[in-house]
């Protein structure tokens, strides 16, 4: 899309891989370029093993030690976070950029009450606040994310909260310092659908105050919450556009397949479209287009040459040899 709002996070040709047992680097993420803009939500979609979570973790630099950055830049504002020290990164995390994960129970400390855990973030990043101010601020954060009776609940422990409420606590911690970017990795996957709807409403409210990068396998959630979308397959962006273009006019065979595979609530589909095969492991990523073994429109060139991500229409890019002429 255009230039309406300012870029908060920009990936430029970012690549990463892991070291295998023989010391060789196996590529996982291949030249990712995309931008998250202020006031917007960018949806990252793909199946398990496509590199969505790794992309999110790269943006907060929480990668395991086997992961090696192979090139590119990740700009937060105008700062390349690949170049800052770990100490500086600790300042950035929580203050400028924060992340929420799928399973809130494993991200919360079970022996500390939730009030303490939210206050901890404030103590770390906003030393100017007094203890009383921190307590007050914690209560107002919990209220903001929709926890009833927050002045009582601050003293409760994580196990006393339901799944949806725990996820709200995680979100309260993440937004405590008003980061300019919130990254949410499958934030509602463990939740029931009526609770999911509540959390998604909250996400929509939050994105208007900052920017959101929402990682999910659920295209329905993307249609509901996001403005922009990147579709990932086997560590590459295969399609990138505004949400409307992707749903109305999906170009990449993988995107088309993903949309066609979802059982519809409206109308009757006799049989679902299913993409043959499955996502390969990174060490088995094929040559050329990584989707080629599963693609029904595979051509000769697909098995040998990597298709570049090309803008076909304003704001709509696709990495597929079918569209390399630029024509539709």
């Amino acid at each position: 899309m255009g230039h309406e709002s300012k870029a908060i996070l920009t990936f430029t040709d970012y690549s990463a891989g892991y070291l295998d047992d023989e010391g060789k680097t196996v590529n996982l993420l291949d030249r990712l370029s995309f931008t998250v803009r202020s006031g917007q939500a960018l949806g990252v979609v793909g199946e398990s093993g496509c590199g969505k979570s790794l992309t999110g973790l790269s943006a907060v630099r929480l990668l395991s030690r086997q992961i090696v950055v192979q090139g590119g830049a990740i700009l937060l504002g105008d700062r390349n976070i690949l170049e800052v020290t770990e100490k500086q990164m600790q300042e950035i995390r929580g203050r400028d950029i924060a992340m929420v994960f799928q399973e809130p129970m494993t991200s919360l400390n079970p022996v500390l009450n939730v009030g303490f855990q939210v206050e901890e973030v404030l103590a770390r990043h906003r030393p100017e606040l007094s203890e009383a101010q921190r307590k007050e601020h914690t209560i107002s954060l919990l209220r903001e994310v929709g926890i009833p009776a927050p002045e009582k609940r601050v003293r409760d422990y994580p196990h006393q909260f339901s799944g949806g409420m725990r996820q709200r606590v995680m979100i309260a911690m993440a937004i405590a310092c008003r980061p300019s970017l919130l990254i949410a990795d499958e934030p509602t996957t463990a939740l029931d659908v009526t609770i999911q709807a509540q959390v998604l409403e909250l996400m929509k409210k939050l994105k208007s105050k900052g920017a959101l990068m929402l990682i999910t396998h659920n295209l329905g959630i993307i249609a509901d919450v996001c403005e922009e979308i990147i579709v990932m397959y086997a560590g590459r962006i295969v399609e990138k556009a505004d949400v409307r273009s992707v749903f109305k006019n999906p170009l990449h065979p993988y995107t088309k397949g993903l949309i066609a595979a979802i059982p519809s609530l409206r109308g009757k589909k006799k049989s679902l479209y299913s993409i043959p095969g499955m996502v390969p492991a990174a060490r088995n990523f094929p040559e050329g287009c990584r989707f080629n073994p599963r693609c029904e429109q595979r051509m000769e060139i697909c098995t040998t040459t990597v298709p570049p991500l090309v803008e076909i229409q304003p704001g709509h890019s696709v990495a597929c040899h079918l569209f390399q002429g630029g024509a539709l």
Partner: protein
Amino acid sequence: MSGKSEAILQVRGLTKHFNIAHGVFAKPQMLRAVDDASFSVNRGETLGIVGESGSGKSTLGRMLLNLIEPTSGSASFDGIELFPMNPSKEAMLRRKMQMVFQDPYASLNPRLKIGEAIAEPIRANGVLSGKKRIGERVAELLDLVGLPPEAAHSYPHEFSGGQRQRVGIARALGVSPEFIVCDEVVSALDVSIQAQILNLFAELKERLGLTYIFISHDFSVIKHVSDDIMVMYLGEIVEIAPAEKLFEDPAHPYTRALISAIPEPDVDVVTEKILLEGDMPSAVSPPSGCRFSSRCYMARGECASIHPALEACGEGHFVRCPYSRQ
């Protein structure tokens, strides 16, 4: 349900209360997992059961397979009363009724080759004997679920989630059952794999004339596979209707909220979201009166005191809410 085909399964007032009190002298504390469930399933059709965690849908499915003993109520399958169960009756019913679970990895022995895992129920239920005949049957079953014959010699860890689910299905099909309870069978799978497995279930139903109970929290999956849909909330059936009807004209306020909450992969669909307040209450102390009353956006004074009955509100359409049509 409309009466063209006969009911193969009839369930009457099936109830399960778990005693969750700790200690010998503790006062019994009852978790009312399923209360007074009555419904029927026609031969060759699929009944979908949808509900959120804690709604009792899995407990209900397990009671039908005698994996959980009901507290009260009765059920009959093909004219045979299921309860009380005895070993010879169970042996006979195992060959007619089977179950497929969510996580096939958890139900497969990691040290047993796939061929052995599929042969086990065939042997245990005395369907076939003799190595050669069982081997042939295993090959036939692998083919039926879309796996190559060499798969028989592999171990579960060599398979992906979708392939393991195919093995789980092959195991259930080994005894040539007429009826299968499928409990969250595609929940752990990616959408492209989910589509493969759902298509397989549809194909098998057609080819083998199977009857299914399909349990899922995912309304779009349930809508896709079911002839009739049953919605559960906190241990009770709140609505039963033919699939299309339930979606086009949901009667119960909970069903409406549930449908409106589904994020649809379509940018042109602008649904009026009905956001429910709070979480599902505990099944140990469900709200008095209507169990949904504590979260219902249409609740009136009476709802908290009068427990509504499941009543007909259209052809094959039943709802547990007296005000749903006002």
